[in-house]
């Protein structure tokens, strides 16, 4: 019982730490996105709140917190109030299986726990895919329950888009799973240790670069970001599925979108770029320094992906709906399946390399 208590407390602490870091990262991202976007467009971005506008997330948060929470007439109140939560929780829950650092077990008052992964379950990546799919419900229900044509159109678009692109995400990571022989995020990271040539993006039997391209495109589509931001297309649908939302509920959708972005970046760096592994063994350090460099490299990779998302947003215009569907089903899906076939052949011919 005492053991269970300690275990429980430790897990709660881990969860609190991870949630805190994720929400802090979301706050940073909201500023960083506006800043990077405006720098790329020869603007300055927010400059008023604090020096160079660095307190803008605080101001945004305060504003959203104190805003009136409007529920439109004719909306399905229950669904309307549930949808933001349904969208935020799956986005945050996925971080449970992400390994942020080396796979150590620490003995704490007779209880063993892993400090850098909340839980190392053997179906980690499947778990993330399952919960991100549930996040789609939040968007669809939010669009449907608002009793507004724009919201409904956004929700419907997102339904079709998420279904078709989740397929590509699932298929593009199969190559990695074939090479690792495991669904556990920790084991996938472990399999890529010892330098960047072992990362699955470059790994020898069959480099998963094509799978990575498919994955990252589908990931952008799954997080509803430009150029696949059809569910919230500003120029067509006001704000898409969260047109009718305001105040904290709107903030929940916002948080969910950014948390999803971080999650997808984490998954991409774990699956294809070795997670917390340094590109060269020298840069990893040794002994007790490994966890520090590990977290550093992980953060670096995740932020690189997030920057890539911003970069893409600053560059590309939105796709048309039929283009989106054609691209998803006729281009990405065959490529992903072809990648699976070729990777299986290579994994069969060169086992254990």
């Amino acid at each position, binding site marked *: 019982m005492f053991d269970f208590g300690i275990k429980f407390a430790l897990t709660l602490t881990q969860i609190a730490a991870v949630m805190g870091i994720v929400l802090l990262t979301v706050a940073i991202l909201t500023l960083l996105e506006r800043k990077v976007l405006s720098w790329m467009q020869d603007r*300055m971005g927010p400059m008023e709140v604090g020096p160079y506008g660095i307190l803008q997330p605080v101001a945004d948060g305060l504003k959203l917190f104190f805003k009136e929470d409007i529920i439109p007439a004719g909306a399905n109140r229950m669904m309307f109030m549930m949808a933001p939560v349904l969208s935020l929780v799956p986005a945050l829950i996925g971080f449970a299986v992400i390994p942020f650092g080396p796979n150590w077990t620490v003995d704490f008052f007779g209880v063993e726990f892993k400090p850098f992964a909340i839980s190392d379950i053997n179906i980690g990546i499947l778990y993330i895919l399952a919960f991100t799919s549930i996040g789609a419900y939040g968007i669809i229900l939010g669009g449907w329950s608002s009793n507004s044509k724009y919201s409904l159109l956004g929700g419907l678009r997102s339904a079709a888009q998420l279904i078709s692109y989740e397929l590509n995400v699932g298929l593009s990571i199969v190559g990695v799973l074939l090479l690792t022989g495991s669904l556990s995020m920790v084991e996938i990271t472990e399999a890529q240790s010892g330098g960047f040539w072992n990362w699955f993006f470059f790994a020898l039997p069959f480099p998963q670069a094509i799978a990575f391209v498919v994955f990252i495109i589908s990931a952008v589509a799954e997080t509803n970001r430009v150029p696949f931001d059809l569910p919230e297309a500003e120029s067509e649908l006001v704000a898409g599925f969260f047109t009718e939302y305001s105040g904290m509920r709107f903030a929940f959708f916002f948080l969910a979108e950014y948390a999803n972005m971080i999650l997808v970046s984490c998954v991409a760096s774990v699956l294809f770029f070795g997670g917390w592994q340094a590109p060269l063994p020298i840069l990893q350090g040794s002994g007790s320094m490994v966890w520090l460099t590990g977290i550093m490299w992980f953060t670096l990779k995740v932020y690189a992906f997030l920057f890539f998302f911003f*970069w893409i947003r*600053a*560059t590309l215009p939105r796709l048309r709906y039929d283009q989106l569907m054609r691209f998803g089903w006729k281009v990405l899906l065959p490529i992903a399946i072809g990648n699976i076939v070729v990777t299986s052949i290579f994994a069969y011919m060169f086992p254990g390399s």
Partner: protein
Amino acid sequence: MKFKEWIKTLTFYELLLGMKTTMSHLLRYRPITIQYPHEKKPLPENYRGMLALLKYDDETEKCVGCDLCEAACPSRVIRVVSAEVPGEPMKRYSKEYYMDMTRCLFCGLCVQACPVDALGMTREFEWAVYDKRNLHLDKQQLLAIGDRAFPVREKRIEFQHPNVAHFNVAFQRLPQKES
């Protein structure tokens, strides 16, 4: 030719080209933003801003209440109530002078129409107000705008040129023309 385009499509050539452009803008960061309340763009020489009523250098109003500005105004901004100066039967002035700046389109026709140059256009433009009624200006407000926008005032026309006839005998309270 076809093959080349295929290669371009497969390597995301166009996308990378666009991303190179945005990245070059990020690296050579030269914003064109002017941080408005803190720094302001220089206004052009002939900028037509807020309207104002002017005075002569002896603190007397220039306006003679002729209503020509009211007649010239295309959007009926101005309303003049003209009256005789008490005790000076030949001299008129504007007893009341109203401007509805919500309608003004800053064409400057009233300034051109004024025979005594009693109207001026200042370079003020920051006239955002919370209540539209604050833009209905009366004579005192317009004179105040003129006071702060045109600190250097003209002499009376009679004194500007020594050869102008001192014809208006009704100006009793004026200092005599020096000769």
